[in-house]
């Protein structure tokens, strides 16, 4: 029994009929073709599917599309502002915070939630906040540095 949903994704309104069993991540990837959000596991562990729902980092593999009805969603494709990269996106490039790139969108979305609530996290807080995001390439070394770099940039941005 298909259900009508209405969501705003990266500022654009969408109306779709979806099966209740359709996971939000599959809705984003297969229906809206926003393929920057990835699927890396089936146990809500790896965090590759992390997006923001109403401003909060969430694993989109653990939400049904119907549950997101009426919500505002932001994905990695919506992080840049009018073509200007988000400071976290810049930082991941600057600090070599990615290698294969598969975990990167989820990593950036989680880090963005962290910095929203804790603009000056220490190393331990960053590592703890990223517990729900797996990376197999970087040993997390440069990911942590990327988040620190972005935090500093964002702070400078505010002070200017």
């Amino acid at each position, binding site marked *: 029994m298909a259900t009508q949903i209405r969501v705003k994704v990266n500022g654009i309104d969408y109306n779709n009929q979806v099966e209740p069993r359709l996971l939000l991540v599959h809705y984003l990837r297969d229906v809206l073709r926003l393929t920057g959000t990835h699927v890396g596991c089936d146990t809500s562990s790896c965090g590759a599917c992390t997006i923001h729902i109403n401003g909060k980092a969430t694993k989109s593999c653990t939400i049904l599309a119907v549950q997101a009805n009426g919500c505002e969603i932001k994905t990695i494709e919506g992080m840049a502002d009018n073509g200007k990269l988000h400071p976290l996106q810049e930082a991941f490039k600057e600090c070599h915070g990615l*290698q294969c790139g598969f975990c990167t969108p989820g990593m950036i979305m989680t880090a963005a939630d962290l910095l929203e609530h804790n603009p000056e996290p220490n190393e331990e807080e960053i590592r703890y906040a990223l517990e729900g995001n*797996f990376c197999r390439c970087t040993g997390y070394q440069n990911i942590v540095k990327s988040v620190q770099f972005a935090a500093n940039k964002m702070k400078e941005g505010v002070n200017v």
Partner: protein
Amino acid sequence: MSTTNGLIGRSVKRVEDKRFISGKGRYTDDIILPNQTYASFVRSPYAHAKILSVDLAEAKGMPGVVAIFTGADVADVNGVPCGWQVNFKNGDLMKEPKHPLLVADKARHVGDAVAIVIAESKAQADDAARAIDVEYEELPCVIDAFKGAQPGASLVHDDVPNNMCFDWALGNPIAEVDEAIASSAHVTTLEFVNQRVIPNAIEPRACNSSFDAGNDSYVLYTSSQNPHLIRLLMCAFVLGLPEHKVRVVSPDVGGGFGSKIFHYTEEALLTWATKKIGRPVKWTATRSESFLTDAHGRDHVTKAEMGFDKDGKMTALRIKTFANLGAYLSTFGSCVPTYLHGTLVQGLYTTPKINVDVTGVFTHTTPVDAYRGAGRPEATYLLERLVDLAAHEMNVDPAELRFKNFIPPFDGIGQPGYQTQVALQYDSGNYEGVLKKGLEMLGYDALRKEQKDASKNGKLLGIGFSTYIEACGIAPSAVVGSLGARAGLYEVGQVRVQPTGKVSVYTGSHSHGQGHETTFAQIVADKLGIPMEDVEIVHGDSESVAFGMGTYGSRSLAVGGSAIMKSVYKIIEKGKLIAAHKLEVSADDIEFESGKFTVKGTDKSVGFVDVALTAYVPHVFPPDLEPGLDFSSFYDPTNFTYPFGCHIAVVEVDKETGKVVLKRFVAVDDVGNIINPMIVDGQIHGGVAQGIGQALFEGAEYDENGQLTNGSYMDYCMPRADDFPMFELGGQVTPCPHNPLGVKGAGEAGTIGSTPAVVNAVLDALWSGGHEVKDIRMPLTAERVWRAMQ
């Protein structure tokens, strides 16, 4: 050669990042083809079972089902082949049972594919797969390599006695080694398991195959490290397809770590099926499937003995290993525990007598093959564990024991390298240099003092060493051919200068995180004296790139980069001819520097872009000068490259719980010349993390019924951000003497060195607390460490 524009050696930010940070990467599962169908598999829930019947009746009638195929449908199709022939000691060929695309008679590991369902949607394929009723008769199974090789063990393949795929040995005659061990003043013995680990690239394997009936051609998208080899194996050995009618594309690949080198049954089956149904078929593994079907790594049961004379000089090394191959031979399953393992057991030491003996055993488990490091971590683990244990037993400092036994420094220039007892000739090395630097970075003496005080706080502090060497830049075709490889291991690099001076580079190496689009562009731009933005690296598509042997064994820069260099030299030489013609001088009078072709001793010159345009607008060329500026080269190395290094771990062990916390990790790696230090550091970071993962967190756990009891991220412990401190990286550069870039390779170094360093550190902590423990089985979970202290 010309001077460069300084791009080599700089931490240039990565070109490929732009797409990845903005969600514009294109991985296999991102691709949906017109008229797409989706596949789902029915897989055996048993490790060993007769398949009595497969009932498709209900599934066939379910919504959206397009086709269902079982083992009977592909009975006449060949299985996927193994790429390396290892012989028994008596010269007999290894046993190579068929690895069918779908099993018809028997399932031989949990996850063995029994049927494929193809439907209009992923959900419908899943629904129908669950409606297929397979009747099994469960049979006894064997999981452990040692037990599998004992008489009476349940057979994986009826025609393979004792489940023995091969037995194999390398080194000095065993009698000589036995004698040297017997006459040693001290012998350190270690019996241990190098446990099975599961690679877990975060992108699950995926493929999408399509057939064009109009011209009888195929396109296979697959998340592979190795698209050309997949095409070759699939066309020539499995499906019998004309290779020129098959295009294999590996677009962005989300990590490989070895597990995406191999030709998997799903690739061939989807390619077979797409023609049958006339529509594209896509399959993406779930993580649960990845756990059961991605080739696993390691899994050795080993006894190793090292002899010393009264002065602590190594006298002999004797190794007996049972290597678990899983249920079938994977593409490189046979060479990993033999030629990539046995050849490295001499390590950095002058040990005069060595014998390594390996039995390859089939078991009812997922096939085992290369996992980051592939054989070399196993060699390093046994050797470096022996050295630290010997130091404890003989009550000498583990660093001192190493200094005493290192091969002295040599640069390999104008002299042969160092010939080991186990076939390899090391290219160049300064082994004591990396250990000295590591000790300095660590502040070794102060740390030993701290160790004495740590116990007061309920903690034990431990320091563990590992000084390793690896054979990379795989490999000289003649050498590997003589050792059983069924392919050459050269690489292809094409440099095409476009008429406007922009440069397209086609490489047979494949980047799945290594940053080739940056590193290779740095080399080409540097050597041609042009901006990096003018260079584009193309890889991963058999239609664009002439040929390739893929990326594994830390070979991309040493072999793939060298192939590109050969073409760059050809471009420069041809450019000189064109410039000479334009400047009306002899080509011998032209020198190339910083993007300019100049008449020696004059200020007369012509730029690279001008020469490029002239090459394609040859209005007044002499008859012997061909138009165009486009060269392709094959580079076949003359030797392996031998990166080496020193890893030191500092751990804290909680006396009450056994919990281990990694406090520091120092790594001094010598990977030869470095093109992009930022990328090399990143490779070391990731490798170290995976090696620590094996030591402390990861390991496949099978129960006696052959069920993988930790086949999900809720049970298999993936290392996370809060499991690591910041690693402390040092470096040393001993150039490789035999390739044009002087590079050795950095992809696996971290994994190879780190595992024994961490385990040695934990044991050192225990010894410091009075627990004289020889071994704890990896991963060193809190409970295992706690038990060792009881």
